[in-house]
């Protein structure tokens, strides 16, 4: 039945609505312009900068999770090649950096290393030596002893984990969920858990710090050069302008390279003391404890429906872990509130402080673990009602934002369901679990959906047109694989009328025009917006030059000119026109250089500073008349060898509405990449915490199992989006994170369909499949 209901929503054609455009304009499938540098090894990442006189720093970590520490660096100091040791005893006082809202840190001195362990693996000392090998050896000679028996909390899922505290301001309530659930025909209740997950970007974190007087230059992979420069400047008491962060390429960030972590002050301090550039490259193991991954979460959901499957109430009680030092909520509440039309809703979240490094943003924070609970619970409800899970979702389709009541800017989730279901063959799915088998493998089909909010921050951009006729785009925005270089070249090429090959782009340098954090899937929208504005202004100046300069061959050729392929001509001229280089040659003009921003009219220098160095200007604003999100529907097929408990994903179809895609080739890659991280989340990834020590024991890439090539089947991404000019200036929504949202529940639901086993704590490892009874 549902197949017919969805028929009108099938997009007329698959692929981008903009397919067929020339490559060089927005919406075209231009290959990455940073591709040649990346495939030849010429692209130099931050830690590959090689200044004269470089020395190497190695970190030393706390061997215990709590209590006073004694740090003895004497042996390290005497080791060959060592030029400095940094210990809590001798480390000078710095100042706190403000947080990402710009709120100042605590008054008084701040030190990145202290005499007390807050978590096991906390960086608490460092060694600097002439070579990397010497630094690493000397670091192992630093003796750190901890206090015996200091109490600590290991993790959220420990049986003795603290209860934590309620985060009441984050409660989301409408209607009366309790009463609705009491009167519901069918109620399902279940608790879902996600473990600590780690970014494991293949490029480890680190920096090269170098001082020149009171000016500091830092080569560091950074998703936010301005925000991190601000933190470094505040800590070391120098003007913001005196800090330059250079980050032309980022070897994977996923949220982990947007903050100035405390340990970075060690390298900066050492560089200042030694008067030499210092390189600190974290070891892979250190990346597990020097920065936080996704916090573990627990979601207890109750969902009630009437006999027809219409939802009457949702109640969510959730918790996530954070550190002793900071509040980081990984809150499943918002995602639970945005998917379904439900008249009664309540979501409450608690935070549990444990002895771990402060968790951080990992691709789709909140949304990704939130979708796991909600979308598994919907699957459980569907089975309880003996309803098709997709039909249940359509029955409760949210035509408007259930939370705010606002209309959606666009919500083509129904189109995503239709296209994904058709491509996957969903309508042939038998309702009952354990219905499909091939040899000794059980086969299951599962689906889930997800969302990610569209947010925006103003930005600025500079566009230059040189006398050689080439254009250059300059921005402090960053490239970590999203395709920033490429889509900004397309933007400028389109605006000016150049071939994309005639545009070069410089990114990732805090000396360049300001940009907010590359996070929240916002960068593509806000940077194309700013670059389009600047490039159009540059084009206008170019046209003005051609029409008004006494020596211009096009002087007085009309009111406007056409520019295409880098040549200017009068409208309806049809002739060869004049190349931009020839125009500059004829006029002797020095080129064109314009800077534009998308800040509100009348913004001050302070506004500009706060826009680029805090998250306070991020969002769509409560006054926006619409709610705006990207949407996705995933359809997964798994094969489960029940004897062994092994689950292999054999197919994945993901239909996505992310508005207009500025470059469908690159956007599709990003959605697939998100989905693949979701495969890891579903089946493999987990920081295995030894509660006796308070640390993950699998702090390496052999034991923290990110998916390999062999874990990933063919993935089909279907674009069902349309330009949404309400969501952003150029019609895009959010691409970077939506891909992961909903993959884990789609796979978990497929495992249930294959086996009848409902596994509610991720990842779905083989021993869980072995030990979970069917239909329990």
């Amino acid at each position, binding site marked *: 039945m549902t197949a017919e209901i969805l028929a009108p929503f099938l997009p007329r054609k698959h692929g981008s609505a903009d397919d067929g455009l020339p490559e060089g304009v927005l919406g075209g499938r231009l290959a990455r312009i940073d591709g040649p540098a990346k495939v030849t090894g010429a692209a130099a990442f931050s830690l590959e900068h090689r200044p004269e006189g470089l020395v190497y720093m190695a970190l030393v970590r706390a061997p215990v999770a709590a209590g006073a520490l004694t740090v003895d660096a004497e042996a390290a100091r005497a080791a060959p090649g060592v030029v400095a040791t940094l210990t809590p005893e001798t480390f000078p006082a710095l100042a706190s950096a403000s947080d990402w809202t710009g709120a100042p840190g605590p008054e008084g001195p701040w030190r990145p290393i202290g005499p007390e362990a807050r978590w096991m693996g906390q960086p608490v000392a460092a060694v600097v030596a002439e070579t990397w090998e010497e630094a690493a050896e000397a670091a192992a000679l630093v003796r750190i002893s901890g206090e015996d028996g200091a109490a600590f909390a290991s993790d959220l899922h420990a049986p003795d984990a603290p209860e934590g505290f309620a985060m009441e301001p984050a409660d989301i309530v409408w209607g009366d969920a309790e009463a609705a659930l009491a009167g519901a025909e069918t109620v399902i209740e279940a608790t879902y858990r996600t473990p600590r997950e780690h970014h494991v970007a293949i490029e480890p974190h680190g920096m090269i710090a170098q001082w020149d007087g009171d000016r500091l230059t830092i080569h560091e992979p950074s998703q936010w050069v301005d925000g991190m420069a601000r933190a470094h400047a505040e800590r070391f008491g120098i003007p913001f302008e005196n800090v330059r962060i250079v980050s032309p390429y980022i070897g994977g960030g996923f949220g982990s390279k947007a903050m100035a972590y405390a340990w970075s002050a060690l390298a900066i301090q050492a560089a200042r003391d030694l008067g030499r550039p210092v390189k600190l490259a974290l070891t892979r193991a250190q990346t597990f404890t020097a920065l936080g991954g996704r916090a573990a979460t627990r979601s207890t959901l109750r969902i009630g429906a009437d006999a027809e499957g219409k939802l009457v109430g949702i109640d969510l009680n959730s918790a996530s872990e954070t550190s002793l030092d900071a509040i980081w909520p990984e809150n499943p509440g918002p995602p639970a509130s945005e998917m379904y039309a439900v008249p009664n809703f309540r979501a409450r979240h608690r935070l549990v402080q444990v002895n771990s490094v402060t968790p951080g943003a990992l691709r789709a924070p909140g949304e990704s673990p939130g979708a796991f609970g909600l979308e598994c619970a919907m699957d459980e409800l569907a089975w309880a009602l003996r309803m098709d899970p997709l039909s249940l979702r359509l029955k409760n389709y949210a035509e408007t934002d259930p939370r705010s009541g606002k209309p959606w800017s666009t919500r083509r989730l129904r189109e995503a369901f239709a296209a994904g279901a058709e491509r996957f063959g969903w309508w042939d799915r038998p309702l009952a679990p354990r219905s499909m088998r091939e040899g000794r493998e059980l086969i299951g089909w599962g689906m889930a959906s997800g969302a990610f909010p569209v947010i925006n921050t103003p930005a600025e951009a500079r566009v230059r047109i040189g006398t050689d006729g080439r254009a250059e785009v300059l921005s402090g925005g960053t490239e970590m694989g999203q395709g920033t270089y490429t889509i900004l070249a397309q933007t400028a090429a389109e605006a000016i009328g150049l071939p994309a090959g005639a545009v070069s782009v410089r990114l990732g340098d805090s000396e360049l025009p300001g940009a907010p954090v590359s996070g929240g899937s916002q960068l593509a929208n806000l940077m194309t917006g700013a670059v389009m504005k600047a490039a159009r202004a540059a084009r206008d100046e170019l046209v003005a030059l051609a029409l008004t300069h006494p020596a211009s061959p096009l002087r007085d050729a009309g009111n406007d000119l056409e520019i295409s392929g880098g040549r200017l001509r009068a409208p309806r001229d049809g002739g060869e026109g004049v190349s931009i280089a020839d125009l500059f040659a004829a006029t002797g003009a020095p080129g064109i250089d314009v800077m534009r921003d998308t800040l509100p009219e009348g913004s001050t220098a302070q506004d500009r500073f706060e826009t680029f160095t805090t998250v306070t200007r991020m969002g769509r604003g409560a006054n926006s008349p619409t709610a705006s999100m990207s949407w996705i529907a995933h359809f997964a097929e798994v094969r489960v060898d029940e004897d062994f408990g092994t689950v292999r994903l054999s197919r994945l179809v993901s239909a996505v509405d992310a508005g207009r895609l500025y470059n469908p080739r690159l956007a599709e890659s990003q959605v697939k990449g998100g989905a693949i991280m979701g495969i890891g989340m579903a089946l493999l990834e987990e920081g295995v915490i030894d509660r006796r020590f308070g*640390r993950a024991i699998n702090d390496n890439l052999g034991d923290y199992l990110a998916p390999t090539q062999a874990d990933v089947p063919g993935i089909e991404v279907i674009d069902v989006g349309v330009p949404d000019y309400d969501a952003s200036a150029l019609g895009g929504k959010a691409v970077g994170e939506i891909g992961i949202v909903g993959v884990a529940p789609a796979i978990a639901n497929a495992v249930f369909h294959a086996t009848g086993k409902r596994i509610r704590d991720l990842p779905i490892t083989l021993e869980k499949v072995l030990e979970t009874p069917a239909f329990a």
Partner: protein
Amino acid sequence: MKNFDYIRPETAAEARDAAARPGARLLAGGTTLVDLARAGAETPDLVVDISRLAAAEPRLGAIEALEGEGGSGGETLRLGALVTMARAEADPTLRLAAPAVAQSLALAASPQIRNMATLGGNLLQRTRCPYFRDPAAFPSCNKRAPGSGCSALGGPWKGRAALGATASCVAAYPGDLAAALVAFDAVVEIAGPEGVRDLPVAGLFLTPLDAGSAARDTGLAPGEMIEGIRLPASAAAARSTYLKIRDRASYEFATVGVAAGLDLGPDGTVRDARIALTGVAPVPLRARAAEAALLGAPLTEEAAARAGRLAFAPDPAGPDSDAPDPGAARFKLTLGPRVVARALLTLGGLA
């Protein structure tokens, strides 16, 4: 990594001399030693690079069929200790003579590592125990520092041993190749200061109980070096398979690995059965009771399941009074028998 002296001897004799010195470690492919040295779990004073010895000692790098050897109608295959995993896995003779051995290599590590790692080095790889591998965080490890205790005991490491663990060490032996060699009665040729000796692969490995200490993985004496592996031909080896179970589809150590071989008579009766396990105990285990139970009867689902159970039954002769709770590896006692059964059924065409 602590610094070390490095020496690249020209002959096997020189290498053995150097290896006899205190603190010396042999370096072949480097995939175990360099890894563990960087982790701080190995602290060699002298690294003896034997990776090019085959130039002077061709037998170390050769795969050869030894004529006139081998019992049941085939030749014994001799694999030089410095043959890389990649070369062995691709060797047509080996693939024919003992598919389980070739598969155990092909399913291990990654192609890059298999290009580097040698067969001798593969046998001598050490446990993946995360507590063993991280001395800075976990000073207590009897395998690293005898008498310091076992950090892994009672911890959440699911890769630990489910069989044969002791309170002094719960580490599991991780290698795939060793299980396949143990199943088919392969022998290692060992050269040392006292001359040359042969040892069944099964006898090379020592449990903490055998050795009296978790620190010692094998019976090799200082200065002894594996020079080759002899794999006798057998009908069971020719009809064999290696089944490796793990969460990740590739590039992961075995949660449970099973090498199995069968010789079936014309009427389907099991004439010979070979079963060996890895990833479940301190050493690769030959499951002799399970093998015996299969003999003389046709292979059936039931027989295979029974063999699986026997393979994972506590050894009645073993001193299991000392055996700690299998803890995080308890599930292997459920999983393991099924892997054995499936491997057998695959060989019998019943899977």
